């Protein structure tokens, strides 16, 4: 069963780029990704660029409305994701807990819809 692990981050809570803590966090991400690959559960995963790069789109009466910024202005926002294929929620929790951002913010687990 596939689960998406949505990584919600708040830059104020996470280590700053260039600090040793930041290096440790990135090493943690590499370790998590390679554990998922080694265990054969990794399907995809990426980090997303910052909120200042976000563009939101809506279709109003057939007309494309483009706006600067994210869907909702919140302190924590979607910063990246993994998609993993594991037998059950307990296994998904185990991998979610490997993601360093779980130590600073929140990782949300959502089962992927099966059609």
């Amino acid at each position: 069963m596939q689960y998406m692990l949505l990584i919600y981050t708040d830059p104020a809570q996470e280590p700053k780029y260039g600090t040793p803590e930041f290096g440790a966090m990135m090493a943690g991400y590499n370790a998590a990704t390679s554990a998922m690959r080694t265990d054969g559960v990794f399907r995809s995963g990426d980090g997303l660029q910052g909120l200042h790069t976000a563009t939101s789109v809506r279709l109003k009466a057939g007309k494309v409305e483009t706006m600067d910024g994210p869907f909702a202005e919140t302190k924590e926002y979607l910063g990246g994701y993994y998609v993993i294929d594991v037998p059950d929620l307990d296994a998904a929790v185990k991998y979610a807990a490997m993601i360093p951002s779980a130590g600073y913010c929140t990782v949300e687990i959502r089962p992927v819809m099966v059609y």
Partner: protein
Amino acid sequence: MTTDAPDDLARMLAAVMRQDRGRILAAVAARLGDLQRAEDAVQEAAASALVHWARSGPPDRPTAWLIRVAFRKAIDRLRGAKRSDATTAALTLLARDEAAEDPEMIPDDRLRLIFTCCHPALDPKSRVALTLRTIAGLTTAEVAAVFLDAEPTMGQRLSRAKAKIAAARIPFVVPEPEAWTDRLNSVLTVVYLIFTAGYSRGTPTDLCNEAIFLARLLTGLAPDQAEVEGCLALLLLTHARAAARIGSDGSSVPPARQDRRLWDVAMLAEGQAILERALARRDPGPFQIKAAIAALHAAQEGPDWRQIAALYARLHHYEPTPVVQLNRAVAIAEAGGLDDALAVLRSLEDELADYQPYHAARAEYLGRSGDIGAAVSAYDIAIRQAVSHSDAALLIRNRDNLLARPKSQS
């Protein structure tokens, strides 16, 4: 002869279901991986029991009969469902065990079901509700009454929880060793919440006994576990004093002033023996500490408050909550450290502003320290916040005694 009359059969079935519904449901759910479908299969098996038992007489072993037929009903439902890897796997399991010589000999799956019902991915209220419904076998109406909810509201809550178990695939398994301690604590916390719900207000179902039933069941399903034994010991040591908790005038009676003749001596002794067995395993945990505190409260020679204070300090290590600190402050005061206790109480002022027992404790110890004005206003807050009449009655009496005291003593 008379046992074949429809009324007798229905009564017999009801008795079997009351006793073994959890066992049957767990067997089906563990194979099916879906609690709602499992409940439906068990329901259908019970319905067909009435028909078949009336025709050919009740079976020698009704539980085995019901498990086998519930497996068949589950197979029928899966055959009609959409094919997937999961349904194929479930079908294989069910078909194998349906053909087993004696379905009652398959291992008891209730432990797996309990861990699922108490999974931390479900919200705490749903964990309690689901455990009462599936393991303790209460009806939805009875579970609703526990929470003072309307039956349809509770029905929706239970459905949502079962739907999440199925959709997010919360497994029906006993957790792995690295998760065991936390997950077991989640289960025992649910059992304890059920117990305290029965303790704090009268509900139509005797929740204290349901909780003790669950704790006993767990000691059988997960034997040699110190914390499981600690939980059962805690419930027994607390419940043994239940009859003495409310005085003849309807007010709460603190343990130290309870009429010991009303204590259930056999239950106390059983609780103490189970606690000693747990402690001998040298695998400490919060439930054993709470049980040890309950045992000290019930000690023949009166409570050893110094030791109780030390145990609350240890409990705070597992449960760093202001309520544990409050209990520690009370023990410190009772052990003679009034000033230290008042200092701890002051540090909790913000966190426990809305917690009635906090103000009741402050009132008591401010009164003892001679600060009558502050004590009376603390009593007034505590009386306003009291949820039960018995608690309010005790507080009003204490406040009035304090006011009636001659000035020279204060």
